[in-house]
């Protein structure tokens, strides 16, 4: 079990499987508000659904209207359980606040791999390994690939 600290952008408590992106996410046009699936062509998460996941990515990008896309996802029950960023910017931060999505930044996201079970509570991020050892190795390998 690993514990990380971050800076609180929107305080809350959440738990979910991590979905890690090495690339920034723009919600307007990047995530389908009707399904929660990443639709940006060529995005590392293209085809993956953000609903209920602890969504981990470096920072936001794109149109300021993207704040409202997060709100719409939340209204439809398709929002991420929590958001962890390296560096927060206004679009995603405002989106998280108006949607009530727990959010931290300044998190050492290199310690998190897709599939990890992540719990967010206030400024603390707890990473547990929920899968088998084999799956753990898989995610480690994937993480290595993403970093390199």
């Amino acid at each position: 079990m690993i514990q990380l600290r971050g800076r609180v952008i929107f305080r809350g408590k959440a738990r979910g499987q991590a979905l890690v992106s090495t690339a920034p996410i723009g919600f307007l046009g990047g995530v389908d508000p009707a399904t929660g699936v990443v639709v940006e062509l060529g995005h590392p998460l293209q085809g993956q659904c953000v609903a209920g996941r602890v969504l981990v990515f470096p920072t936001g990008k794109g149109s300021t209207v993207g704040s409202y896309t997060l709100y719409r996802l939340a209204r439809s029950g398709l929002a991420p359980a929590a958001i962890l960023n390296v560096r927060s910017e206004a679009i995603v931060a405002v989106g998280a606040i108006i949607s009530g999505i727990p959010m931290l930044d300044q998190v050492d996201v290199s310690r998190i791999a897709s599939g990890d079970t992540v719990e967010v509570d206030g400024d603390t991020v707890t990473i547990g390994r929920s899968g088998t050892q084999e799956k753990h190795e898989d995610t480690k390998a994937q993480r290595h690939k993403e970093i390199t």
Partner: protein
Amino acid sequence: MQLTSEEHTMLDGRQGAAVQKAMQIVTALGEIYGAEHLVPVASAQVSGVSFKNLGDAGLEFLEGWAVQGARVRVPAYMNPTGMDLQRWREMGLSAEFAQKQQRVVAALQAMGVELTCTCTPYLVGHVPRTGEHLAWSESSAVSYANSVLGARSNREGGPSALAAAITGRTAAYGLHLDANRQPTHLVEVRCPLRSEADYGALGYRVGRQVGDGVPYLRLQGQDVRADLPCQEHLMALGAAMAASGAVALYHVEGVTLEAAAVATSVASGEAPTSEVVTTNAGLVVATSVAPGEEPTTQVVPANTPTIVVYDLSAAYAALDSPLDQIDFVSLGCPHSTLADIARAAELLRGKRVQVTLWITTSRDVRERAEREGLVAPIEAAGGHVFADTCLVVAPMEELGFKAMATNSAKAAFYAPSHSGLQCRFGTLEQCIAAALSGHWPGPPSEGSARL
């Protein structure tokens, strides 16, 4: 970040959930951008009004916040909507769009946002004072308020401008602080600038290069005393820099307010006596002119990046496609001034347009134009003077136009990606000629060849 006790009551919910949400937004942005405290804002200008951009999600959010009891506590001005609120049928828009758009406007009005529906509140009596802190969001309005009027605003998003209006505060970072109002780039403009289109093309060029920097422009191709940029020129310049880049503040030597403070400082003997002060250490410019404060002079270091603009042909080439046939002419981005409407009226008087012509402006300016008899000749010629909207925020893709002519570099920059329109870009006179004939006047390269 230090909060006052009043600000704490907003953040901890003692002033209700709607205020709490607004204060959470304001303080979160302050934390993200390293603000030490909040500042009271004199006004807010709220973008994110067009249903085209908001969609159902934005509409639901605004209605929800209004129902929760959100109310502005400082004057707040509405950005253009997706349609003329009275004459949307004449624009060719669907009743479904109109109904959703009306709901957005109603939600904002319920919160107390004024029905200005313009990117130019400064043309309709809402002129910020020098040094005032603002939370404005439409990018050309922010640029004008900072650069020409010497007020202080970051480029807020729609929700953050509204949050600032609801709390009466914004976080003190970015352009609220003296240190961030210093020039980051010197721009030496060696070619003459003769029209709003030239200023727009220059803005496009500079914005692409400086990003979110603060350019200090020296217009060296002008006979400056005889040919200073007018209000419309500065509007076009600032709007284009804010679109192709993210410029929220610029200085024009001898023209804009904080640049003009150089002359004040020279006259009072605080700096060397030449009009343009260039030293080994760089250029001396004033950056702080808050009311009651002496202008403080800053030296731009010698290694400040300098951009020399010899001609505008590349900018014209990027904005202007070689189209002959035109089916839509749009003027008024930013919203037309009374003087622009008068120019168009003069060119159209007694004639007949062959293609759709929109002149977009604020309702207030439209009413003044009507009283002065400027709308009648335009509409008698078959043109439209629409209020409350513009082509950047109207759902143009519903209307089926293909080839647009405009005198706005900002509109020419956004229209291809945002509205699926190809563009001719030139002067107001060229655009009116295109409206009267359905063809772009002169050879395709005329705009650039002139220079």
